[in-house]
């Protein structure tokens, strides 16, 4: 089957993402990325030291049409050409989700296109299927050359398998590690369109939140991820031994009799430990060793995330692990995860950062899979579901 023919058959899908502070609109044809346009309200949240839902929702409404127009222009298509509209229906901030959902319903209704309300977390996995557009449109946000941690693309077996109709699918036994300001989850993905299972997640703060809160404690500013990453470079990651949450035997159990929190994380105790360490220096009137604390904190987070993710993967037969979420930009996380996956003989795939952070292309990518799989579209009456479970891939 020629590339052109298969590409022509693949569904053209527009994806909309507004679950947090990024207004993202992406367009894909099957697994080919045509546009990935993102407007972020992050700057407006900086002075608050965290995302303010009402500010995010206001920004989505303002940014929606300009972002839509730019995405269509980048892809060189008209809305009437698309086969379907996909939109994040959850999980996320309700008020923010509702802007994208209502806008998506308007597009679907006006253009008479099927609507797919999709799961934000599963969309983060779907992005792993995207391939660069044959003649790239020079989209600054969408540099499609993915980082493949297990060396160059020499191994043809590692490529996603093409299916009839030109759609690629995930390799068998795929897992996904999602680490962001709102999420810390490990998923087993039997099928992107019909079989996703949550293996573990944080029971309190998301990892990105822990970075934000610790950066605040250390006076490093917001967002905390890049700030800690930078400060840690000059620090000793072993200067302090900060706790790795939920690693005690009573929580973890064994592979045969797993404890309740074997594959779960907790970062609230870590945050408290950092606060105590800072306090000790302040009380003693000594300068706070910011770089050492940042490096040791980062090491604690990254150590426990990667250790638990790799163990969960091994115990569930996962042989390909995808990394997603904004914290995927963290250098130490990439480094340690690469090392530990290699040791466990797990192939690690890390999409480019622009596709790891929240974006519309991932929603479009999942939408295209749903269309190709013949999944029934959503009704115009679907709600925003702020706590949509991963099993609900589309609503």
């Amino acid at each position, binding site marked *: 089957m020629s590339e052109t023919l298969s590409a022509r058959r693949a569904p053209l899908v527009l994806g909309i993402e507004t679950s947090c502070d990024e207004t993202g609109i992406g367009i894909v044809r099957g697994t080919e990325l045509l546009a990935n346009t993102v407007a972020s309200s992050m700057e407006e949240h900086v*002075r608050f030291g965290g995302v303010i839902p009402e500010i995010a929702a206001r920004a989505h*409404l303002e940014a929606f049409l300009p972002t839509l127009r730019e995405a269509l222009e980048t892809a060189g298509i008209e809305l009437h050409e698309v086969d379907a509209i996909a939109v994040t229906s959850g999980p996320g901030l309700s008020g923010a989700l509702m*802007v994208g959902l*209502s806008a998506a319903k308007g597009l679907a209704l*006006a253009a008479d296109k099927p609507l797919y309300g999709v799961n934000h977390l599963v969309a983060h996995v779907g992005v792993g299927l995207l391939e660069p557009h044959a003649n790239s449109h020079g989209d600054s946000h969408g540099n499609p050359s993915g980082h493949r941690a297990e060396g160059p693309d020499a191994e043809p077996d590692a490529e996603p398998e093409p299916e009839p109709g030109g759609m690629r699918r995930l390799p068998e036994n795929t897992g996904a590690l999602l680490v962001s300001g709102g999420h810390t989850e490990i998923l087993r993905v039997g099928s992107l369109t019909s079989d996703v299972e949550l293996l573990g997640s944080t029971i309190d703060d998301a990892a990105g939140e822990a970075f934000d809160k610790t950066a605040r404690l250390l006076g490093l500013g917001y967002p905390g991820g890049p700030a800690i990453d930078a400060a840690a470079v000059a620090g000793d990651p072993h200067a302090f031994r900060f706790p790795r949450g939920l690693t005690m035997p009573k929580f973890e159990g064994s592979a045969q009799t797993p404890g309740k929190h074997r594959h779960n994380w907790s970062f609230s105790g870590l945050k408290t430990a950092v606060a105590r360490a800072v306090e000790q220096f302040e009380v003693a009137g000594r300068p706070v060793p910011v770089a050492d604390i940042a490096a040791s904190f980062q090491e604690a987070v990254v150590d426990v995330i990667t250790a638990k993710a790799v163990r969960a993967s091994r115990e569930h037969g996962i042989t390909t692990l995808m990394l997603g979420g904004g914290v995927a930009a963290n250098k130490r996380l990439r480094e340690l995860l690469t090392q530990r996956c290699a040791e466990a003989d797990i192939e690690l795939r890390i999409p480019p950062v622009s596709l790891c952070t929240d974006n519309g292309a991932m929603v479009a990518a999942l939408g295209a899979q749903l269309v190709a799989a013949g999944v029934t579209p959503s009704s115009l009456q679907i709600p925003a579901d702020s706590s949509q479970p991963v099993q609900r891939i589309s609503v």
Partner: protein
Amino acid sequence: MRNYHGGVILAIDSSAGASVAVLDADGVRAQWRTAETTTHAEVLAEAVALTMRDAEATGAGLRGVVVGVGPGPFTGLRVGLALAQSLAEVWGVALYGVCSLDSLAQRAVNQPADSGTSTSHEFLVASDARRREVYWARYRAEPQGFAELLEGPRVSAASELPELPVVGVGASLYPQDLAARGTAESHWLPDAVELGQLAQRRLGQIPEPQRRGEPAATAVGAGLLEPLPLYLRESDAKVPAHMRAKQTS
């Protein structure tokens, strides 16, 4: 509407309950409404589809889409605006905003009070702004039978409003502070039918349709607003103490 001689209009309001209407020069072709305040994201798009079908209207054949821009609770308000802007964008028709309180003011003029009209012909519209406040505006019944906006819209405690007869749910929420014009009027919610009629009148005063969702200055001058929410309040967010300290230092 005597002045209006062209085109079908789709009107949407989600500033309190939610409502949809399709109107033409002969009147209302189809309408839908709910008093529910927490289901806009679920029901409004389907309601537009049904109302358009009932009215036998096509999107591309519309003169424009009219949307209530509030004031009203933010989340629900945005649902209507996000929907309306997508519809107008895809259909390639103009999108106009109308203050949602104007709907109640027009109803007050269309349905004069049973007993003793106010000598000044002035009155207030007050709706629920939650947090012990009302959204309100002051109007006058002008001789041609339309409500003229004199002041507002604003948001404040009911006790701070001018002493005039009040229509809208604000009157039933704060009877100790506000003098309701009548019992029925104290339960009125904004409605797309009146917003559509007001837009027809205002569009009748300007020449050709403005396309592509960008009302020209003439449309804005004629009492049509940009299709942007009238929040009237900042977001609740307070800059945390540790961030304030840093920003002032």
